[in-house]
């Protein structure tokens, strides 16, 4: 049995997809546990899970303790050979601890899994994504965290399955959740997952104000190139580059930025660079994954409009 665990329905398709393919290769079945999200549990059967669990209650009240305990119980109940989790700030802690509780192996930053001779072969990213490695686990169950956006989603083909409900286990209270806060308002550039960055093409006045708006809608931070900082459109603490900050967001919007190497020096860690520039020859396009040759203001305005309106 392969157990997939999710916290919300957004990560359901890819996590179940990976679990289903692995289960298939091992001649097993797929179970899904949703930690707190009833909608995800409802969808699970349709996406191919043969058993569906829903853990209810104040899961987060004890930090990760209750979640780990609940998952450990389930793994034992279904005799899972592997547990697949979507990779995020929560599962970063849960996966190794869960694996240890079960006497198994944790595999993190997973971008692929194959089966050879009845044994799963896990492919994971290392050295900040500069290298790939394949590993096998010496002890089962394996608890793997999956890199987002890599695994193909499951097809909605199955039937609904009845949801087995579980309660949040008790813990010893050594860890207690006191409060939740929104992320800090002025997200620091180094920690931001999304950066909306403006360069010489942005111009004075409205330009950077619109970038602030866009960043707000995306839950990100505003960055700037040296040219924009020089021109006084952004403060120096917003500068990205060789003499500014080195950032590693998931998405870096380079708007009206030419892409001088001293700027590129600061964005090497970005997972995806989206470049918008009127100059088709601008060096930024060589460093970007997505490029649009158009006026950045028009792009920003249009994006703000689309993000504001309901999908």
């Amino acid at each position: 049995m392969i157990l997939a665990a999710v916290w919300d329905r957004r990560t359901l398709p890819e996590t179940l997809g990976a679990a289903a393919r692995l289960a298939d290769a091992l001649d097993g079945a797929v179970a899904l546990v949703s930690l707190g999200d009833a909608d995800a549990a409802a969808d699970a059967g349709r996406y191919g899970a043969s058993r569906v669990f829903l853990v209810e209650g104040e899961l987060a009240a004890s930090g990760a303790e209750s979640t780990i305990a609940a998952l450990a119980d389930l793994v034992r109940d279904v005799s899972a050979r592997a547990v697949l989790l979507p990779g995020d700030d929560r599962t970063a802690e849960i996966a190794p601890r869960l694996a240890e509780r079960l006497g198994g192996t944790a595999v993190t930053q997973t971008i692929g899994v194959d089966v050879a001779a009845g044994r799963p072969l896990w492919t994971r990213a290392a050295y900040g994504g500069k290298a790939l490695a394949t590993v096998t686990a010496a002890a089962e169950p394996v608890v793997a965290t999956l890199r987002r956006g890599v695994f193909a989603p499951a097809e909605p083909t199955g039937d609904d399955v009845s949801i087995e409900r579980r309660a949040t286990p008790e813990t010893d209270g050594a860890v207690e959740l006191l409060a939740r806060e929104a992320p800090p308002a002025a997200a620091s550039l180094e920690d931001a997952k999304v950066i909306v960055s403006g360069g010489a093409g942005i111009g004075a006045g409205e330009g950077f104000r619109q970038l602030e708006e866009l960043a707000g809608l995306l839950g990100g931070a505003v960055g700037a190139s040296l040219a924009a900082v020089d021109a006084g459109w952004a403060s120096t603490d917003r500068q990205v580059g060789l003499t500014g900050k080195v950032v590693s967001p998931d998405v870096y919007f380079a708007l009206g930025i030419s892409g001088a190497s001293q700027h590129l020096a600061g964005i090497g860690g970005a997972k995806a660079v989206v470049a918008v520039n009127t100059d088709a020859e601008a060096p930024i396009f060589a460093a970007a994954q997505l490029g649009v040759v158009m006026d950045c203001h028009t792009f920003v305005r249009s994006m703000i409009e689309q993000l504001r309106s309901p999908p």
Partner: protein
Amino acid sequence: MYASMAVALLVFAYGIWRRLRIWRIGRPSVVWDHLGARFRRLGAAFLQATVLKRRFPGVMHALVFFGFLALFAATAVVFVDTDLGITIDHGAFYLGFESLTVDLFGAVFLVGLAIALYRRYVVRPWYLERREPRDALLLAPLFMIALTGFGLEALRLAATHDRWAHWSPVGFIVSRAFAPLGAAGLKAAYPWLWGAHVLMWHAFLAAIPYTKALHWFTSPLNVFFARPTAPRGVPVPTDFDAEPLRLGIAAPSDMTWKQLFDLDACTECGRCTSVCPATAAGKPLSPKRVILDLRDAIRADGAAAGPLAGHVVSAEALWACTTCRACEDACPVGVEHVPLIIGLRQNLAMEQVVVPAGVAETVAALEAREHPFRGAAAGRSDWLEGLDVPELHSLEDAEGLDVVYWIGCAAAFDERAQQIARSLVRVLQHADVRFAVIASQERCNGDVARRTGNEFHYEMLAKANVETLNGAGVTRILTHCPHCLQQLQHEYGRYGGRYHVVHHTEFVASLIEDGRVRLAPQAGERVTFHDPCYLGRYNGQFDAPRAMLDALKAERVEMARSQRESFCCGAGGGHAFYDDADDGEKINAIRVREAAGTGASTLVTGCPFCLTMLASGARAAAAGNEPLRTRDVVELVADALAE
């Protein structure tokens, strides 16, 4: 009279002794080398060379200076004649010198003092920072002493009906006013006036060591003591093996005796502050205040004064300095502000760890990666790919080379600076110069560490570089960066690095002169040259870049503040890597405005950091429009090469 003279001399001597006590707690200073140059500078100072650079106060001081000297000589002559009994004061000498010349100089003296009073209390230049009536207490007594001197002369001329009276024109005129007193009156008035004159002078003499008049003695000496030749502005190195370990200047005893002497040589003229770029940008740094605050603290608390770095002189003031040396150059009395400021920074950086965030990050980068930048888009030699430039690896490779081209960090990591290097390579190849690079084996020259007081990291880098260069048998080095020039030529000697280093402007200018560079210059555009501080003021090189521009047939205009008086771009002292608050216009903005004011279409310079700063300032000034063009001078040559 002799009694009061003796008392005055005793008080004077005590005052000098108190000052001497302070100077003696300082560390050693080398002041006896380059004697020829030192005496030359002293001679020039005697002739008021630097003082006269500012016409109005210069003339004022010259009048007072030479006037006083003449009067003093006159009194000395009388002393010799009367008290020592050696008869010299008679005949032509008496008439020509003692009477006529001295009278005229006496008048000159009075005029000079009057101008001084007028300037201080009516004109009020901002950098004089007139503080208390204390300053008037110096000028007024001198004025009175001279005046009473003339009065005495006038009385004598009147009483004795001196038939040579007209040889003393001033005295003669005043004596007419005294005539109504009558013989008895004149005779009665004389001793009183004489007593007043003598007592005032004795009182003044006694007060000299306790007032600004001390500069009469300390200033000329300080001019002699100041370093007369390059390298200047170099901080005192740290001896990391010393027991106890002293990191920079924390207490007066950490200063050299010359630095302590500087404090007493300062005449509070304010010229240093008036040329300081940090002051102009509204930063909390006034070089004059640094000197005077230290002086006042040490006069009050002696050897126990302090902590000097961060308290007597604020950290903000110390971090605002760009080490441009304009202050030192403007100072007429040889005060050396920059090594003192860096010495205080050494304590802030290495002991107290009170540094701007950018400095901490830069030091961390130097420690981890041996270059001062964050991140790195490429390796040091990546940009050389495809350029057919040989890389030097061993002693054998070095033979037969004209020169080794030291690239430096800016060109290795910053794209704009790279263009300077590319242009220079093109010119070198065009001229068939046999050169090689060390590129991937280079590490930061350490100047940024040294100028921010981080001597520990500086030494690590310097020693390692010397090992690399000596190991490869390098003796002649070409560089396009004045900071690399300063380090490799002047400051690496301490670690066994002795090289002949030439800046690319000097090198290319001589190539042009030798006809090895064929130029096809375009129509003369209007250009102005910004002298980098570390090339011009530090190393006295001004002509080569101008010769290059002339060879390019450019229409060369000069900014008001050029060559020795060049106004800093703002990047020095580590500022290229950290920000500190400024209340006014940024330093590079001020400079760009000055350049634009010449009507030039291109601002040309010879340093990658000046280029970055000025380009940045030009963009800011343009605010989205077409900015003033900024170029390194070798780029213009490369563009004009006739193939």
